[in-house]
């Protein structure tokens, strides 16, 4: 049954690989909202470690971290985050939707 299938998903995560900054931010905002609607209290955002970038710096992760620390992310229910998976992902904590 569709409803059961949607509820039984093992984890809430979003893969931001291959997206530009704007696209990644948009995808993450949507994933944050979806996760909260599904009752999740956390979301794993996979950013990659930046090994594919020209200077080896994790450009996307830095951008996403800055965005997550800002007011826009707070208004999407983000209460905090931390690096995980050896720096290749961000574990984001979410406020429960009212």
């Amino acid at each position: 049954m569709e409803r059961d299938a949607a509820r039984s998903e093992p984890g809430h995560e979003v893969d931001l690989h291959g997206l530009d900054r704007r696209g990644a931010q948009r995808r993450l905002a949507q994933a944050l909202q979806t996760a909260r609607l599904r009752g999740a209290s956390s979301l794993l955002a996979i950013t990659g470690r930046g090994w594919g970038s020209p200077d080896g710096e994790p450009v996307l992760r830095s951008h996403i971290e800055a965005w997550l620390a800002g007011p826009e992310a707070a208004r999407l229910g983000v209460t905090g985050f931390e690096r995980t998976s050896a720096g290749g992902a961000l574990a984001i904590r979410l406020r429960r939707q009212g």
Partner: protein
Amino acid sequence: MVAPLRRSLPPSTAVSRLLPLCLALLAACASPSSELERMVKNSSRDLEGGGRLAGVTDANAARQQRRIGKAREYVAAGQVGSAADHFYAGLILATSSSLDDLEAATLLGLKAAELGEERGFRVAAEAIDKALRIRGEPQRYGTQVSYLEVIQEWRLDPLDPRTTDEERVAMGVAPLAELEAFVRELNANPAGD
């Protein structure tokens, strides 16, 4: 005498000619998208052609109930698989007044979005708002408007003040200022011309 087609063509030619047809038939059998899309188009057609309240007739309501029933059948039978299936089924169920249908529409919309059909977010927002209004609670995103006959005016249904514009935009809904401007436009142009 003309030889039967299958004998007159080399096997490889027959396969190359029949393959697209077979694939099209398989696709049609595997996914109810085209039928669901057709139902959505017919539903829109019912609402057109006579002002914004034209859709509220017994005949239209009965047809819409049949469409909702059919969408429920597709979902229950597990025939909803693609992003388009989820989107159109959600769109139809979001027109229901049943809380079960609206919950299903929410999940279908979110799944459609997850599968790549971003308009699914808007379907989910609409179903969530409608369910909240049926429960007598303020809507979350701002997708529901009502026409107040007494004062002949459109109003945005009461809104949960905790919802942010960022949450609206993530769900494919416009920021509050734009929603309010839309309602002002509705009132300035009540005939929908």
